[in-house]
């Protein structure tokens, strides 16, 4: 069993890098990649704390549901990105400032 702090340090790094990507990148798809990193940081925390109590699998079940929601988010998000790209001919976040014409 590895010390749980080492999992948590990596999860903190992944969370901060995901936040940095969401703030600084100017492409919508890169922002989606940053969101995936944030979700994976939370998954790593859940698995790490589940490891402390291996008789129950509550943490792992939470990870499964987080993965399911991440799938929905990626599918719907990319569909919206495609439609917005067809309308504005760009996927730069700052130039998309209106929801309708």
């Amino acid at each position, binding site marked *: 069993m590895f010390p749980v702090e080492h*999992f*948590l340090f990596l999860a903190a790094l992944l969370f901060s890098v995901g936040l*940095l990507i969401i703030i600084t990148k100017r492409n919508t798809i890169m922002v989606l990649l940053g969101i*995936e990193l944030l979700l994976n940081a939370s998954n790593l925390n859940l698995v790490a704390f589940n490891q*402390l109590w291996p008789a129950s699998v509550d943490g792992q079940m939470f990870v*499964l549901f987080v993965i399911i929601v991440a799938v929905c988010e990626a599918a719907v998000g990319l569909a919206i990105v495609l439609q917005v790209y067809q309308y504005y001919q760009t996927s730069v976040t700052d130039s998309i400032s209106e929801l309708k014409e």
Partner: protein
Amino acid sequence: MTLTSFMFYFFEIVAALSAVALALSRNVFYGALLLIVCLLALAGIYVLAFAEFIAVTQILIYAGGILVVIIFGIMLTTKISEKPLAVEHTYLLSGILAAGGCFGLLIYVLSKEYFLTTGVQQLPSSPVNGIQTIGVSMFSKYVLPFEVAGILLLISLVGASVVASTIKSKKE
């Protein structure tokens, strides 16, 4: 250093380096490939943390599903001419301040905090069949969230195909 701990720290370093490289990369396609590397390294960490089912799910769904969808999105939303995949960085100062502040705060709190690692029960001598436990609890204790997740997947599938379709409705 045993082989197990070597692999654990190897996977941790790979995940951290690919995440940092993803933040520095200016190419969307390289970014997606770096995210695949990071997710596979995380799957290796899950195996070493006794979460085999989660690791397989991670590889199947993230590396096999989400990343394929994202690469399709990249191919459909980039112009073929004139510098297709380059991404500019904006708000660099505020981004670094926010992310660095968040990272520093988390590291400070986590290094102050003491998590019980000795008092809790150790792994039993005979290995627990984790996948069997997950399957049983998925259909007993977590059956309602499981069904709701199925409905959520169906709704998002229909919604995504409706939003992404280019065919206009035949309303007169």
